[in-house]
């Protein structure tokens, strides 16, 4: 009964989404306030029914209702409860439900926190969001229904893919989807502004916090994904340039460009039509990513089992969204008047350079991801683009971007005296070049030109940011004033500082782990030891172990440094009982400046095991960087100018509410 209830709730949600996408929009043209205010009501209704749908599916999982096909193929009575819940989004149908649920949640958030928006703008935004919701609900109900029944119902489920039984993966997809879907808010704001013909600083200020929150979610999602791959795939890589990773990284790059270009639009009124185009692109790239994952057109470690029907549906949806929004753009953008003027040397120019670079990198990654498809379509053969290509592209443009990142925060809006800028950055430049040279010359062990470049760039970020902060605080008198600046006045600014520091941290991590990481696959007999990077790894033995829904061979590896034990690692080779799938569970000894990573391969005869032993210096700094970026984004969103408007809205609400109720009632 519950699954039918869920199914019914989803259909009702679709009906409400249709209402949400049409009536408020029509209302904005006819001036009908009742119709416009329907947007919020419909958004709440849609969200309520989506929640019911999601709860029904969760209940089906907790209840071991294997008569539901999706539950039967992704759960099992022995599956721990936490993973039963995360199994809800462990495969295609459920993750789509989660996606639509998030979309509904963003809609409700817009309805709830946008009281300060003019009624027409809010109605248009919610309408566009409703359209996106209709698209995804139709996709789910027509091609991938999570509540489909299975007859006869099996007695036992086929269990969740063991790779997905990991705490990191329980939260990775929701965060990622929050980000993907969050860009639909930026997209909706952009389209609403185009439809209304009013693109101004106020518009940028409204859509900025939404965009930043979406970007934060995407950042966390990608960071978690990388961390999961490192932990769970058992071969210690943190990024593979896999099509699906690219599918999340491209929207992230475009989203990062959007966050920056929105800043220019808000502060200086410039780049308006470019910002709109970026908002459209960011969401389109999210959709394209979905298409690539769901349709199975690309060979990828993440690809779901394929179904051409789904691919065609999403492709059609993609064409409608991209085509439709670009037509509206082409129709409306020429009416957008230019914003504030700026000099050649100014923060605007540097942010423009930031945007150009980010978009170029995003476009290159997109090219590399789609190239095999293009090649195949012209019947030139089946190819793949190796990840050295992606690395090369990335390394070619990131240094430029980081150079610009250092200068930007130290530059004035509108006009900057180049001589003054050079004077201000002189010290930072000297320090970072010196550090870079020290790491490039073979004076230190492990120094190399690339290490010099990486460290120099990270130092450039840190020193220029310090310069900027010192400059800002120089005129503050006393600690109290500084404290007030940090906690109250300048959250948006300090958010930027934090996020940019995150970038520095990631650069250090990526540079050092790529250059100095040591990876060894060896054959070891029990009792045998191995020297690596100054550590001694002793395989003490391998014994049997029984887990809740798996059996395992558990290795014991003692790690010594200078004859002193520093860790005892227990990597496992698990075989999950139901899917009989072997799974490598790596064991990692973690320190801030390095990871020691051991995973078991397989028995190779004579009691020997193949063992994988890695030394990963500074690998944590990559994810720490991601966390810093996300925190920076959150801090920026909490800036008082967004909160001030909330407070002033409350006072307006208090005076206006009775009238508004009358009007909408």
């Amino acid at each position, binding site marked *: 009964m519950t699954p039918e209830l869920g199914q019914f709730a989803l259909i009702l949600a679709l009906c409400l989404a249709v209402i949400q996408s049409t009536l408020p929009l029509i209302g904005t043209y006819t001036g009908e306030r009742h119709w416009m205010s329907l947007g919020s009501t419909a958004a709440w209704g849609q969200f309520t029914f989506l929640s019911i749908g999601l709860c029904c599916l969760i209940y089906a999982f907790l209840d071991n209702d294997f008569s539901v096909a999706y539950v039967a193929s992704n759960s099992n009575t022995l599956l721990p409860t936490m993973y039963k819940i995360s199994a809800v989004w462990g495969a295609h149908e459920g993750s789509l439900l989660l996606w639509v649920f998030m979309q509904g949640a963003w809609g409700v958030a817009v309805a709830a926190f946008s009281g300060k928006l003019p009624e027409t703008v809010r109605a248009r935004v919610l309408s566009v969001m409703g359209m996106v919701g209709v698209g995804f609900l139709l996709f789910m109900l027509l091609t991938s229904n999570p509540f489909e029944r299975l007859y006869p119902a099996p007695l036992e489920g086929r269990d969740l893919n063991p790779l997905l039984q990991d705490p990191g993966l329980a939260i990775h997809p929701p965060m990622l989807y929050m980000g993907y879907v969050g860009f639909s808010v930026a997209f909706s704001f952009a389209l609403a502004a185009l439809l209304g013909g009013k693109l101004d600083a106020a518009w940028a200020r409204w859509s900025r916090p939404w965009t930043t929150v979406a970007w934060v979610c995407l950042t966390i999602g990608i960071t978690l994904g990388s961390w999961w791959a490192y932990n769970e795939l058992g071969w210690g890589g943190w990024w593979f340039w896999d099509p699906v990773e690219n599918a999340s990284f491209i929207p992230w790059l475009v989203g990062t460009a959007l966050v920056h270009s929105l800043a220019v639009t808000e502060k200086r009124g410039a780049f308006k039509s470019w910002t709109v185009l970026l908002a459209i692109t960011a969401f389109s790239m999210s959709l394209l990513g979905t298409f690539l994952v769901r349709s199975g057109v690309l*060979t990828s*470690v993440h690809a779901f089992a394929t179904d051409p029907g789904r691919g065609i549906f999403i492709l059609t949806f993609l064409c409608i969204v991209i085509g439709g929004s670009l037509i509206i753009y082409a129709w409306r953008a020429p009416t957008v008047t230019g914003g504030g003027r700026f000099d050649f040397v100014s923060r605007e120019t540097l942010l423009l350079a930031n945007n150009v670079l980010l978009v170029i990198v995003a*476009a290159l990654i997109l090219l590399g991801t789609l190239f095999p498809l293009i090649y195949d379509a012209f019947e030139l053969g*089946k190819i793949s683009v*190796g990840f050295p*290509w992606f690395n090369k*592209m990335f390394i070619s443009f990131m240094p430029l971007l980081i150079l610009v990142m250092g200068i930007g925060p130290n530059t004035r809006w509108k006009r900057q005296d180049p001589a003054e800028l050079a004077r201000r950055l002189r010290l930072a430049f000297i320090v970072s070049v010196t550090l870079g040279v020290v790491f490039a010359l073979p004076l230190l062990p492990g120094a190399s030109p690339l290490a010099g470049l990486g460290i120099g760039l990270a130092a450039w970020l840190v020193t220029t940011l310090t310069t900027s902060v010192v400059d800002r605080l120089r005129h503050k008198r006393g600690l109290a004033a500084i404290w007030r600046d940090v906690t109250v006045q300048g959250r948006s600014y300090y958010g930027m500082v934090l996020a940019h520091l995150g970038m520095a941290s990631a650069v250090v991590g990526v540079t050092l782990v790529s250059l100095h990481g040591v990876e060894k696959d060896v054959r070891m007999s029990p009792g045998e030891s191995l020297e690596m990077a100054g550590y001694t790894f002793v395989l003490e033995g391998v014994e049997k172990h029984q887990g809740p829904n798996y059996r395992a061979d558990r290795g014991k590896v003692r790690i010594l440094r200078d004859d002193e034990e520093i860790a005892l690692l227990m990597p496992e080779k698990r075989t999950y009982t139901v899917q009989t799938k072997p799974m490598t569970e790596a064991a990692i000894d973690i320190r801030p400046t390095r990871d020691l990573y051991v995973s078991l*391969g397989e028995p190779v*005869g004579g009691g020997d095991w193949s063992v*994988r032993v890695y030394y990963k210096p500074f690998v944590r700094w990559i994810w720490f960087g991601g966390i810093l970026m996300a925190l920076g984004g959150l801090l920026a969103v909490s800036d008082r100018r967004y909160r001030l408007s909330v407070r002033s809205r409350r006072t307006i609400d208090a005076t206006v509410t009775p009238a508004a109720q009358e009007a909408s009632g």
Partner: protein
Amino acid sequence: MTPARKKRLYLVLLMIAGIGTAVALAVTAFDENLMFYYSPSEIVAGEAPVDHPFRMGGLVTAGSVRRHSEGLTVQFDVTDNDKLVTVEYTGILPDLFREGQGIISRGTLRPDGVFVADEVLAKHDENYMPPEVAESLKTVHSGADNPGGTTP
């Protein structure tokens, strides 16, 4: 030309230069990093390059996995249900590697016809068949009854 226009011209030129560099870089780097895919039949027919790395794939033949007594070198046969190619790999095979399973491998062809792999990929999802492998199986036996090689 007004100063404003001049500035705009510079900006546009700068962007074109940036995009131009990007495209040039991308295309030249493609040459070294594009990897073609060949099925075992094509390799046996001598269509695959001998000096350039490429990718191949197919099903691991049942009973073909042979391990050396020293080190981590392993040999197995990969088939598209028509021809066989022996693959040699030194290292740890992925978790989902097993006989009958579809795999994709990257490496070079040795003059004796053995494919020396640097990387062997088996997929996360047991129902998932890499599109290249699925297609080469299809071209050999159109309508092969069990293309996945796994029992559902």
